[in-house]
């Protein structure tokens, strides 16, 4: 039971910086791709112009919920330049709705409700921005003008936008076939054990809160360009997307019924996604469908207003969370009930975000022996909700770390102490919510963060701030995430309708230069640099001698894409496995050249060497020999040096860390200033520290955005989106953020060859709880709703003062 006794057995984290790296791995190399991005040479989907290009404009619903009595398209169809007008009535009967990629089975044993998500509205519109019709014309202006001439006769219906309203008896039904708006009720954990633990608890901490809905806001809006080639009856789709093979598979097999091998999907440079570009959307699917009928390439790029109403949103949970503790502050059990919005339709991975990616993370970094979580997924008349940076894991961390912080305050235990009393210290560790953590060192990150944040100096800073009539607060969040999605068999058992492996191909050219083809796809993470470093390190060649190709189903064997901080741990491993095959074949070639046996040849520092001798051939000579096989064992070995590997992970990876936020609040205005933000993370081994820091910075900025600024607001009566532009939706700006203090500790992942865990989402996972814990500490309140706007802070101060008076 005591964690200290077993501590010695656990692997202790190395602190960073480790010994100076000798090869490319570990170097802070500038990103290869930045030259083209910064000089305007990037090639995004909207930059692609095809011969005979035409343009699409989508007419969208102005109502949150309405019956479509009729749609008149005659005037639009005869408008200047119009090539085609498409509505839900024009879709062929063979065309399906947009699929959901994860089947959740409810506590009642029944599958989740999956009402049809039509490509264009059929019979009803269900959220503001629901796509009603598409006009294709010679120019975008002509398409837009014509769309204004489409006559839609709507019968507005009552709408529900809040999960609490949607679950009320007699609430309007978003889908007639789901009268209670309930997609599923799902649960995880041992309810009996949890109830028993609560019954004997010395202390119970309870919180009710909302995890606010967010709008992703990638800097590049969604875009596509679809073309049909009647010569070979094939389609070409350019689309801004994080996983082109998945896009193609879903579109061809589940919606359009097209032969998969006749569709090529290219995602060129992608300007941010944060999850919102994982999904298969209606717009690109309709453009593909229509490109054959119109006989012209069709291009569509969302304008910013469309992005606000039609990109899949994130979060939107209403949660009641309870933590049972013994008298010493040891966690006995956790009980969580969450109502999660799905929006009007099930987006591609909507169903697994508040379940598989949420409830499984509720153990956090702690030994809580019993956890039960029940999730009710709810349809609402809003844009669909799906994965957004962290996807379920920020929500879980918010539950755990708000509970822990509140319990510590209530029980008068120091914030670090309550965490230390409950940290997991033996690995592997089986949580009560399905996951098995392979490794970690949570004390190391907590200690590192406390040191960097100068926690001992905090009381003095608080006193000094008080002299200036400012309130200072300190907030901790010790988060964990499950990344590297995922073992396919585990995911399949949990309802995934897809595999979650990755593919990589390494092509060595005759001159020894290398092209890497990866199924991962960068939407800003710098893969071209990181993957080049990994390959160059292993092959002992220059980083600039490696090029990375991604985002093209026509050039890459297969791919599951980029999400869940999986690119390096899963995609990178697939590449490593292909490199291993290259080296293995190279050894045979080298052995032949050196007249040695294969077993005696080793590959070190870019040279194949006969063990124990100075006989060697360089990598480039082996490459040339493979393609000019004059002196070559052709009877035993094929020429060429080009290998492909698929990798399916055996477990998730478990990045973890502690974030500490220090705030200063102006009690007169309610303004919260983040004066310091510290993140000490364990991402396993690190290939490029500069890129990792950039990922942490971006994630923390988004987490701070959620905590203080960003809140998607729909009008609770009309269902109109009130935060439909940057006039009303507050994104964090540089001036809202301090200089971040970031550092890492390293316990290498035990089950992938690079020992890496993933870093893309950590900032957004840890930051919201750290910020809100700091605000609550500063104000001396139990809770404050996100985003903690200036008015909410002011009201909290005022009601505190009223209570005191």
């Amino acid at each position, binding site marked *: 039971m005591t964690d200290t006794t077993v501590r010695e057995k656990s692997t202790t984290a190395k602190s960073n910086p480790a010994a100076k790296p000798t090869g490319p791995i570990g170097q802070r190399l500038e990103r290869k791709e930045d030259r083209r991005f910064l000089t305007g040479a990037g090639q995004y989907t909207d930059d692609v112009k095809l011969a005979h290009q035409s343009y699409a404009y989508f007419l969208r619903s102005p109502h949150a919920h309405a019956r479509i009595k009729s749609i008149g398209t005659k005037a639009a169809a005869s408008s200047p330049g119009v090539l085609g007008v498409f509505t839900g009535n024009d879709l062929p009967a063979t065309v399906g709705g947009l699929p959901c990629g994860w089947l959740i089975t409810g506590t009642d044993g029944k599958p989740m409700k999956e009402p049809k998500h039509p490509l264009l509205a059929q019979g009803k519109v269900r959220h503001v921005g629901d796509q009603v019709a598409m006009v294709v014309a010679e120019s975008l202006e002509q398409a837009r003008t014509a769309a204004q001439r489409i006559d839609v006769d709507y019968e507005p219906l009552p709408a529900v936008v809040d999960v609490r309203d949607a679950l009320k008896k007699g609430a309007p039904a978003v889908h007639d076939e789901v009268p209670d708006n309930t997609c599923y009720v799902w649960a995880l954990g041992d309810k009996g054990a949890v109830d028993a633990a609560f019954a004997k608890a010395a202390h119970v901490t309870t919180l009710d809160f909302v995890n606010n809905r967010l709008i992703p806001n990638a800097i590049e809006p969604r875009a596509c360009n679809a073309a049909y080639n009647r010569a070979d009856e094939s389609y070409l789709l350019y689309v801004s997307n994080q996983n082109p093979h998945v896009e193609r598979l879903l579109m061809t097999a589940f919606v359009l019924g097209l032969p998969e091998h006749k569709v090529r999907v290219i995602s060129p440079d992608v300007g941010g996604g944060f999850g919102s570009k994982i999904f298969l959307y209606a717009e690109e699917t309709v453009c593909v469908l229509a490109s054959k009928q119109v006989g012209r390439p069709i291009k569509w790029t969302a304008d910013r207003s469309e992005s606000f109403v039609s990109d899949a949103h994130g979060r939107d949970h209403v949660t009641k969370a309870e933590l049972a503790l013994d008298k010493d502050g040891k966690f006995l059990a956790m009980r969580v009930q969450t109502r999660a919005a799905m929006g009007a339709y099930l987006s591609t991975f909507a169903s697994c975000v508040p379940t598989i990616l949420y409830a499984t993370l509720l153990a956090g970094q702690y030994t809580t022996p019993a956890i039960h979580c029940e999730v009710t997924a709810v349809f609402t008349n809003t844009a669909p909700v799906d994965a957004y940076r962290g996807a379920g894991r920020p929500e879980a961390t918010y539950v755990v770390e708000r509970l822990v912080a509140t319990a510590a305050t209530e029980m008068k235990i120091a914030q670090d102490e309550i965490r230390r009393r409950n940290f997991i210290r033996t690995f592997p560790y089986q949580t009560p919510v399905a996951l098995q953590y392979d490794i970690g060192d949570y004390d190391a990150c907590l200690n590192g963060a406390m040191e960097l944040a100068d926690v001992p100096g905090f009381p003095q800073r608080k006193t000094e701030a008080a002299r200036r009539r400012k309130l200072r607060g300190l907030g901790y969040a010790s988060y964990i995430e499950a990344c590297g999605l995922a073992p396919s068999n585990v995911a399949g058992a949990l309802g995934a309708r897809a595999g979650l492996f990755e593919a990589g191909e390494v092509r060595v050219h005759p001159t020894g230069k290398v092209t890497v083809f990866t199924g991962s796809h960068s939407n800003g993470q710098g893969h071209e640099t990181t993957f080049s470093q990994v390959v160059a390190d292993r092959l002992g060649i220059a980083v600039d001698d490696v090029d990375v190709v991604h985002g093209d189903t026509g050039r890459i064997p297969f791919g599951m894409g980029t999400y869940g901080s999986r690119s390096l741990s899963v995609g990178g491993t697939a590449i490593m496995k292909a490199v291993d095959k290259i080296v293995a074949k190279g050894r045979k070639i080298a052995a032949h050249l050196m007249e040695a046996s294969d077993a005696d040849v080793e590959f070190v520092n870019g040279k194949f060497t006969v063990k124990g001798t100075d006989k060697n051939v360089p990598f480039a000579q082996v490459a040339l020999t493979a393609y000019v096989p004059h002196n070559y064992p052709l009877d035993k070995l094929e020429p060429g040096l080009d290998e492909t590997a698929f990798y399916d992970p055996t477990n998730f990876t478990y990045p973890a860390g502690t974030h500490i936020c220090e705030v200063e609040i102006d009690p007169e205005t309610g303004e919260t200033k983040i004066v310091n933000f510290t993140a000490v993370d364990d991402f396993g081994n690190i290939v490029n520290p500069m890129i990792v820091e950039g990922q942490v910075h971006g994630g923390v900025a988004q987490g701070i955005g959620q905590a203080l600024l960003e809140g998607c607001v729909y009008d609770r009566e009309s269902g109109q989106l009130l935060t439909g532009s940057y006039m009303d939706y507050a994104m964090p700006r540089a001036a809202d953020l301090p200089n971040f203090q970031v550092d890492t500790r390293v316990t290498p992942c035990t089950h992938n060859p690079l020992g890496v865990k993933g870093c893309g989402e950590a900032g957004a996972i840890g930051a919201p709880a750290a910020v809100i814990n700091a605000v609550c500490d500063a104000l001396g309140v139990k809770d404050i709703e996100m985003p903690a706007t*200036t008015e909410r802070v002011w009201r909290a101060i005022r009601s505190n003062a009223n209570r005191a008076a």
Partner: protein
Amino acid sequence: MNAFGFYEPTSVRKAVAIAADHSEGKYVAGGQTLLAAMKLGLATPSDLVDLGKIPELAAITYDKAADAVVVGSMAKHAQVAASSEIASRIPALAHVAGLIGDVQVRNRGTLGGSIANNDPAADYPAAVLGLGATIVTDQRKIAADEFFKGLFETALNPNELITSVSFPVPKRAAYMKFRNPASRFAVVGVFVAQAGSGIRVAVTGAGSAGVFRVKAMEDALAKNWSPDAVKSIAVPASGLQTDIHASAEYRAHLITVLAQRAIAAA
């Protein structure tokens, strides 16, 4: 955006003549509001009369006789913020201009465009009213107190063109702005000034009918120019705006807080 005619006159006389010939036309100054409205289809003028090619409209001069700084209606916010003429005589006005929008907006947006639009959350109306400025048009001179007529409404006649604004140099003045974190417009902005002609407290961002003066604060400050003088003066929430960013009650509170801070800074 719909198609429209575009004119670039080189004098005020020509601009007014063109506008008179196009009843559905509009002047465009910096275009920071109008162009966005046109892109969204919320404004569909038949013609735009661009004022950017009329050099005298962009001048900033000092009128010694009146002891006033005269700012041309096409002076950009960035130009006002950086003007040494203004910085040396009415630094609070330069400060206001420097707080508007962002760098891009300040390099396009103009004084005349801002006050002709009279957005209830814009900054300039607070300075114009707070300094008791005079708006000069192609037809007449209008006192600030007579100019702002409610939400997006002014005393301007159709096609009347603002040519400059004359700001009397005050003894002291300051502006405190509480920004909307999304739009950077004022949730509340308070401009205070003490001048030969008296004391003014002007509030933007908060009023349900746009910029307004707070007489109770002005009277209190006339007796005692100090932050404490206004500490207990609250503007009634009933005349203030409520939106998703701030309730009327919160805005009322902020007015009192910002007024004190402005007085302390002046």
